């Protein structure tokens, strides 16, 4: 590939960052509207009582937990696969890696939202978190729900690192090719990346370590979500 082509590819790829078409804003309005609808529905559920969700005796877990498990399942497809492919040096993974990792991070964020919506008193959701509270009571560590909290947060943190580390050179690329406030923002995000061989070497080592570390984390989060259903003697 000659340098001229490479430069054109780079500038083509960066075009959506600097120029925004009306189609983009239309999409933002459309999807934002759906988010607002969902938020409104949640507020209505809190205001009117949890009964409006349609859940009833004797099956108290329904739509929300199903959605939670679905999105956790979706998150399986990203970072874990990407890490395995990185470890086996599959070259064809390169075009899809970032897509897969972004899917994991966002699927986890959506998934983690549902147990909160599912609560009868969501304004007390922080009681699930282990912190030294004035109530002098820790969460019940026998409960799989508490381990859900740990597992999902660990996986989310790991996946975020796994997504953001290899994106640093790309942030630096954007920093070097833009001006004004974009340059300042991406300058901060690029963390002083210069593209020296030493930096590349360190990035590669970090990614190797992360790729190995993320695999047991991914296995643990999906195991712990399964505990939710296996702890109860009633089949669900």
């Amino acid at each position: 590939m000659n340098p001229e082509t490479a430069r054109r590819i780079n500038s083509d790829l960066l075009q959506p960052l600097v120029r925004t078409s009306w189609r983009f804003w239309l999409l933002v309005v459309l999807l934002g509207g759906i988010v607002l609808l969902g938020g409104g529905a949640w507020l209505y559920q809190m205001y009117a009582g949890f009964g409006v969700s349609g859940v009833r005796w004797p099956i108290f877990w329904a739509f929300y937990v199903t959605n939670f498990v679905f999105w956790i399942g979706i998150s399986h497809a990203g970072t874990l696969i990407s890490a395995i492919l990185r470890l086996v040096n599959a070259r064809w993974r390169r075009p899809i890696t970032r897509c897969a990792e972004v899917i994991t991070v966002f699927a986890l964020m959506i998934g983690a939202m549902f147990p909160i919506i599912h609560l009868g008193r969501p304004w007390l959701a922080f009681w699930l978190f282990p912190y030294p509270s004035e109530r002098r009571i820790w969460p019940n560590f026998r409960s799989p729900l508490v381990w859900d909290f740990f597992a999902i947060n660990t996986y989310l943190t790991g996946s975020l690192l796994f997504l953001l580390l290899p994106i640093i050179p790309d942030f630096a690329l954007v920093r070097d090719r833009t001006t004004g406030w974009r340059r300042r923002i991406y300058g901060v995000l690029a963390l002083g990346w210069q593209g020296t061989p030493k930096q590349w070497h360190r990035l590669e080592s970090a990614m190797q370590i992360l790729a190995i570390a993320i695999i047991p984390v991914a296995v643990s989060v999906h195991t712990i979500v399964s505990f939710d259903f296996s702890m109860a003697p009633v089949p669900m």
Partner: protein
Amino acid sequence: MHRWGMAVDLDSCTGCGACVTACHAENNIPTVGPDQAARGRAMHWLRVERYWEGEFPDVRLKFRPVMCQHCDAAPCEPVCPTYASHHTEEGLNAQIYNRCIGTRYCANACPYNVRFFDFFNPIWEKPLDVQLNPDVSVREVGVMEKCTFCIQRINAAEIQAKADKQALKDGDVTTACAQACPAKAIVFGDLNDPASEVSRLSRSPRGRKLLDDLGTLPKVTYLERQSEA
């Protein structure tokens, strides 16, 4: 230390439902109205299950009052992330409403389906609103509630006995359902006292536990039917 338990003689039970009414009145259990009841959201800490046997016209009807079994190895307790479902020293399977955040995990884990969720803020239609029991807290929307073995009566009797410097006698405490039962089918008492009525009945060869094979070790014993009537 007491260990509260219950025995239900199914031979005596006529299925009249007095226990259900007494339980509602004692424990401030809201009536949800016909619409919500049709959606399966009626809250009966104690319900009388009906079992029809045989073909018409030769049918027999069996009743079984089912309340929280206060299991010694309760499936609802380990799954609660906030210790709202809590085992007391006297073996009661207590529900601490203030701690409950409504994960509803306990109700999913309960094989007896005796836990009830407040899907809406409770309402009492007139004149029910003037008969609320001041000894029992009213539960707000989003928490789980269940049979407590009338813990307010147990506590009151224990405090009274302590004030009188006397030990609790068998029969000093009884639950609302046992008190209301006209056939005296429900007997409540201390299982640690081998001479108590409930201990005697629990040792009966007719005694059965609900879903015994799950290993939940319920403290409610059902004396199975002998009569063919």
